[in-house]
């Protein structure tokens, strides 16, 4: 999928983790992570519970702070500097396991809030943009409802639309389908596949292996705060290198 562009010019690097370490108090949760993501790449991250997947992607938009090493997103290094943090966040959208929609605002208001207040876009225009993305996630007719009146799958699609309204270059997904009933998983994955096909750079923590096979350029396996294995999906699933990966795959595939 990637080689056509790669052969001509060197692809643009949009996310770079260099020797990145993080501790929660004394607990060394991420150890010496190195990762390079180029523009348009889709990365799927998997691994057992507690391995640090969420923590890693939350470091990329500074919801968590790392203590050693470097994180560079779209050419900006994440430091204490608030300007740098805001710069990075303006390039990065994020979807959460539990959607985190704003329950006191309608779907449309959820989508317009950040464009109006962060990007200072006039309300009418922000609403137009929001409707465009709500159509893309196929729920324009729910625009005036409150999140509490929608199904889980619909809520997650609103959350995706809300992020897209900020026009991000990179989308982070933290187990976007694992809080959903099985029949709703598909509708969310469909939206994500479409997004991937449009060329969005994506890092996605998920255990939906079908999704990984369909869209991922690389699958990353993490355990105990380390990246154990990193490979293209076919190799990763058919020919895993480490014992830990084999064990993990046998556990989730026989599930």
């Amino acid at each position: 999928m990637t080689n056509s562009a790669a052969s001509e010019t060197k692809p643009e690097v949009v996310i770079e983790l260099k020797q990145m370490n993080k501790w929660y108090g004394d607990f060394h949760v991420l150890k010496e992570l190195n990762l390079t993501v180029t523009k348009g790449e889709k990365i799927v991250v998997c691994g057992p519970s507690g391995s640090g997947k969420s923590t890693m992607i939350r470091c990329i938009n500074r919801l968590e702070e790392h203590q050693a090493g470097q994180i560079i997103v779209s050419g900006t290094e994440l430091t204490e500097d608030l300007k740098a943090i805001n710069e990075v966040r303006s390039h990065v959208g994020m979807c959460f396991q539990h959607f985190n929609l704003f329950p006191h605002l309608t779907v449309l208001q959820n989508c317009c809030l950040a464009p109006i207040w962060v990007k200072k876009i006039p309300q009418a225009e922000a609403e137009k943009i929001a409707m465009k993305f709500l159509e893309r996630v196929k729920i324009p007719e729910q625009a005036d409802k409150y999140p509490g009146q929608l199904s889980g799958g619909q809520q997650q699609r609103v959350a995706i639309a809300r992020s897209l309204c900020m026009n991000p270059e990179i989308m982070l997904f933290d187990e976007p389908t694992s809080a959903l009933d099985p029949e709703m998983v598909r509708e969310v994955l469909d939206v994500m596949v479409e997004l991937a096909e449009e060329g969005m750079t994506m890092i996605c923590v998920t255990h939906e292996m079908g999704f990984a096979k369909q869209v991922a350029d690389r699958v990353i396996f993490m355990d105990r705060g380390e990246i154990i294995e990193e490979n293209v999906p076919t190799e990763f699933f058919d020919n895993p290198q480490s014992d830990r990966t084999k064990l993990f795959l046998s556990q989730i595939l026989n599930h």
Partner: protein
Amino acid sequence: MTVHEFKPDLAPPTSARGVVGWLKYNLFNGPVNSIFTLLLIYLVIPPLLSAFQWIFIDADFIGDSRDACTSDGACWVFISSRFEQLIYGFYPSEERWRVNIVFVSFALIIAGLIWPKTPQKTKLAIFSLVIYPIIVFYLLIGDSFGLAKVDTHQWGGLMLTLTLAVVGIVAALPFGILLALGRRSDMPIIRSFSTIYIEFWRAVPLITVLFMASVMLPLFVGSEVDFDKLMRALIGIIMFQSAYMAEVIRGGLQAIPKGQYEAGEALGLNYWQSTGLIILPQALKITIPSIVNTFIALFKDTSLVLIIGLFDLLAIGQSALADPAWLGFSTEMYVFVAFVFWVFCFGMSRYSVYLENKLHTGH
């Protein structure tokens, strides 16, 4: 393979049970329910009837001295002869139209803010919070624009009670919000200041606060500043009330899931934007019952200003009891004062219920 025929959507059935059906279903549904219903009727109805008789049927309404009190029931002539004082305190009679303007305009503003379809509500709210208080201040105090000066020590009765309560309520809410945010701040100085402030003011009784405000405030700010007594009481009440309000609001803030902050951050909203647009609207919404509860408590606590020599509604009522011409009519006075307090507090309570329902947006 058969194709499933989906049934058409129907309107829900209407429940037409009628009055008798309702009574039977809700009050006399089974022996236990029936016994409780009868017991309550037995316990509640007779006292209500005799109260009704005392207040309305056997009561005297017309007259201008105690000679008019001829029947067994209440003698409301006492109240009507004192009515102006109960409302205006010692505000000079020829200037009372100024207070009336404030009463009417205040009622209109409240109505405008409550009524759901008022146009330009935000502008009305800003006007009533910023410009209106200034107008009221000059109107009531006078001493400019050709109005005679009326010192605050001449204020009293219901107008004083309302002044204390409204200023206390309106000022304590923003201070309370700031203190609650401060107590949850990451910055140690702000956090300790807020915590110490809240814990100090919450732990002293309001009477003490009022007493300190009246006696000690002049010591702090220097005696050359001639601080108005009403102003001192207001400062004391606001200090005290903001601490209470802060704790109520902090409870609401704590109930907001961490994910809401994170979603705001991930979208690039800064602290004040997240707080103002995402966190506070939700936190205030869930704390409406407790906020109104503190408002109601404050409304009634304003009567404590008696101890620093201000005459609120209750104090005016009590001073009227000492009038030798009206000895023995304290019940009427207390019932009347209680009724006025009840009307305002009940109004606030109903409004809070209405707001809760209006702001409900699904689970």
